[in-house]
């Protein structure tokens, strides 16, 4: 017998931990068809025939958020055998609100009263038997973190599935409402095939839930009749139907809590004490930047940087080893080149980032699991919402200074769909670690006396993010009804190492899998193009100008003529090879530059940098965008927007620069000095204090907002006193 158990619960109720405890490691992570909401599925430990479906964390079964609609549709249409409702026992009042709705679906429900250890530690008492009676379904005490009660929960769920014992639906509403719901029930009894969820449908119709009204396709007379019933009560209660139902649900829960929950009076919890420091008016921002700096310092600058060395050495050994093996086997020159540079070289380039990413994800998981991430949103929201982002967008963008891919992946912590999309689209605008060598190269060769060029790249990038945000907010993908920013601030917890480790490993795994495959395939393709002529003759690196790649570059270079760097095919090709990884741009200049001179002026060099900064990111990042957007349409829109904007900005730089500096040395062509190139790109011209620059700018913005607030408030006071 196959049994489906659905895990449903509020965010922060310990649902993920519970899922991991129930399934062990045998789980499958995907997205719901067509949307980006994560779909996790697994088998109950030691029970191959019992599936556990982890539904998204939600507060209600309202029709307004994607997560809620997914959960509703799943429960009503797919009908799992049992709902396991995870309830945070230390925050019962709001958690039970969802429970009352789940019980009404007619699907046998078992409540896992989770985090019971926290309640016991606080000295509070819960009358479980009474609670079970009030809710009309079995209640099991659990602590997913400590692994307590898991077995009891599993066996209770299986038993419930086998016996198919229905929930006892309690009449939680006042008599008048209950009568109306029954009236609606009677009215629609022939429109619903399934007796068990008739009550649920009736309540939704009473709430005038548009999605359900459409779904049931009731006759006009019936719809009008329901409307009459509802309107009469709305007038009597002086509230709309949704408001009446919600208020009565909470009133009922208050009664249940009063009966079943004995709370010890506490003055200030540890969580309150932490919070009073961490979100303190004056300390909040310094603490926040301190934490970020530390994370960045450890994962990107120090430990992360050392690991890059190790990984490079490791792949160097593999490369040398396989080449010597192949040479001994008598492999041809092009096989050596393909295996050594095409395959191992490019995979190695990706893997150099993996340890860095894992360290970064480790810290992010810590922030997430400890409850600090929600405070980040609380502190930063004011700044970011101005351009269509939310407070939580800060983290992905900061990570983006290292690499866009984990940045894009980190956007998953943003609940709001629109904010998340915007963050995914804008994160690649932040100069990532792989773009730095390109800037470093040009700065060293073309702008050695202009120290402002490095920082200006960052300033331009931040302004472009801001202006794009304001602009895109008005386009169809991002416009629409403003979503409320009503966010729970969970109590601080000490993160569990196991949870953090699982979190970190899952992220790293999906990075390696997705990025690995895309990069691998595209690197091989580019290698083929650059190593063979159209007549399929193998070309050694010095003859690159005869390759297919050069041919393609020659064919498309006219596109870049308005930007100032379309005179030869090399920059055009470099822009294309940049799609593999942005560091490859430098490598391309180096290998092409050996065969022929490449010329730039200061103006066209700047235009090239601007184009590289904003144009489509590398394939791996496009893959990550595709994964997080959940569809190609939006991905293509994003890549198109990025490339289009890059083109326009580079065009402006070239056009305006050529006019202003006409005839001066700024517009004089200069041949790139290839022999000094690799060295130049390694130098730390811009590497230095990026984080400090970014922080400095944001701090300035924050101060500016603070000051304008003060001025505005004092003006208000003056106006009031007048």
């Amino acid at each position, binding site marked *: 017998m196959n049994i489906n158990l659905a895990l449903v619960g509020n965010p922060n109720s310990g649902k993920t931990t519970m899922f991991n405890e129930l399934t062990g490691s045998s789980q499958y992570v995907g997205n719901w068809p067509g949307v980006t909401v994560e779909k996790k599925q697994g088998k109950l430990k030691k029970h191959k025939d019992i599936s556990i479906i982890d539904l998204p964390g939600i*507060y*209600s079964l*309202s029709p*307004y*958020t994607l997560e809620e609609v997914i959960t509703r549709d799943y429960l009503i249409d797919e009908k799992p055998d049992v709902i396991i409702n995870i309830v945070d026992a230390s*925050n*019962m*009042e*709001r958690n039970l*609100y969802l429970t009352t709705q789940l019980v009404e679906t007619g699907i046998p429900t078992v409540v896992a009263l989770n985090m019971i250890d926290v309640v016991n530690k606080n000295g509070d008492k819960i009358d479980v038997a009474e609670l079970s009676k009030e809710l009309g379904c079995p209640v099991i005490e659990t602590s997913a973190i400590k692994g307590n009660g898991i077995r009891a929960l599993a066996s209770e769920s299986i038993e419930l599935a086998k016996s198919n014992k229905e929930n006892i639906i309690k009449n939680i509403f006042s008599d008048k409402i209950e009568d109306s719901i029954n009236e609606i029930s009677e009215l629609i009894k022939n429109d619903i095939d399934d007796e068990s969820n008739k009550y649920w449908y009736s309540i939704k119709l009473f709430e005038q839930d548009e999605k359900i009204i459409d779904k049931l396709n009731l006759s006009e007379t019936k719809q009008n009749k329901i409307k009459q019933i509802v309107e009469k009560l709305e007038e009597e209660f002086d*509230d*709309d139907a*949704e*408001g009446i139902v*919600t*208020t009565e649900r*909470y*009133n009922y829960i208050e009664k249940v809590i009063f009966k079943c929950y004995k709370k010890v009076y506490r003055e200030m919890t540890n969580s309150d004490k932490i*919070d009073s420091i961490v*979100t*303190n*008016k*004056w300390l*909040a*921002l310094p603490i926040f930047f301190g934490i970020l700096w530390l994370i960045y310092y450890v994962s990107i600058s120090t430990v992360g940087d050392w690991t890059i060395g190790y990984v490079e050495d490791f792949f160097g050994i593999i490369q040398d080893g396989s080449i010597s093996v192949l040479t001994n086997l008598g492999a041809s020159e092009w096989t050596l080149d393909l295996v050594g540079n095409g395959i191992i070289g490019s995979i190695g380039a990706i893997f150099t980032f993996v340890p860095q990413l894992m360290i970064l994800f480790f810290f992010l998981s810590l922030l997430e699991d400890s409850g600090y991430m*929600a405070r980040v*949103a*609380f*502190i930063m*929201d*004011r*700044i970011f*919402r101005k351009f269509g982002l939310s407070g939580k967008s800060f983290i992905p963008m900061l990570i983006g200074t290292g690499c866009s891919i984990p940045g894009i992946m980190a956007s998953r912590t943003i609940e709001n769909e629109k904010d998340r999309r915007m963050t995914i689209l804008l994160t690649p605008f932040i100069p990532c670690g792989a773009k730095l060598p390109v800037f470093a190269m040009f700065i060293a060769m073309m702008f050695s006396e202009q120290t402002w060029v490095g920082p200006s790249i960052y300033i331009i990038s931040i302004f472009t993010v801001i202006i794009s945000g304001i602009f895109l907010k008005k386009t169809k993908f991002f416009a629409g*009804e*403003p*979503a*409320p*920013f*009503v*966010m*729970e*601030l*969970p*109590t601080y917890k000490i993160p569990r190492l196991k949870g953090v480790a699982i979190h970190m490993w899952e992220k790293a795994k999906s990075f390696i899998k997705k990025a690995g495959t895309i990069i691998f395939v595209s690197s091989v393709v580019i290698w083929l193009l650059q190593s063979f002529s159209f007549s399929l003759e193998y070309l050694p690196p010095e003859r690159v100008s005869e390759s297919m790649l050069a041919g393609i570059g020659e064919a498309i270079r006219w596109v870049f003529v308005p930007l100032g760097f379309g005179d030869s095919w090399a920059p055009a090709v470099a822009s294309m090879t940049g799609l593999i990884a942005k560091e490859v741009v430098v490598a391309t200049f180096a290998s092409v530059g050996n065969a022929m001179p490449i010329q730039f002026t200061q103006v066209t060099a700047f235009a090239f940098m601007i184009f590289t900064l904003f144009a489509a990111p590398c394939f791996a990042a496009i893959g990550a965008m595709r994964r997080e957007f959940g569809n190609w349409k939006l991905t293509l829109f994003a890549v198109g927007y990025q490339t289009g904007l890059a083109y326009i900005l580079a065009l402006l730089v070239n056009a305006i620069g050529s006019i202003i500096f006409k005839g001066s040395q700024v517009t004089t062509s200069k041949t790139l000095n290839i022999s000094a190139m690799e060295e130049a790109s390694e130098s730390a011209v811009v590497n230095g204090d990026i984080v400090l620059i970014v922080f400095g700018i944001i701090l300035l913005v*924050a101060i500016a*907002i*603070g000051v304008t*607030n003060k001025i505005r408030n004092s003006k208000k006071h003056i106006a009031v006193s007048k």
Partner: protein
Amino acid sequence: MKRLENIEPGSTVKVKKLDGKGAVRRRIMDMGITKGTKIFIRKIAPLGDPIEVTVRGYELSLRKEDANKIVVE
């Protein structure tokens, strides 16, 4: 009519009515702010918005523009 947006931190108020409609209003109610609920205003974020309140035993943050829809006494 007093609105949650204008209440000084440190005070407790009772919800009288919720303005607005659709998703925003429902979300606020789903989070436990319904007619008659007691709300304690804990603090204002360092940059002046959003605000943090205690409602039904947990901490909730909401933007001032949303808090403006909550009529209190």
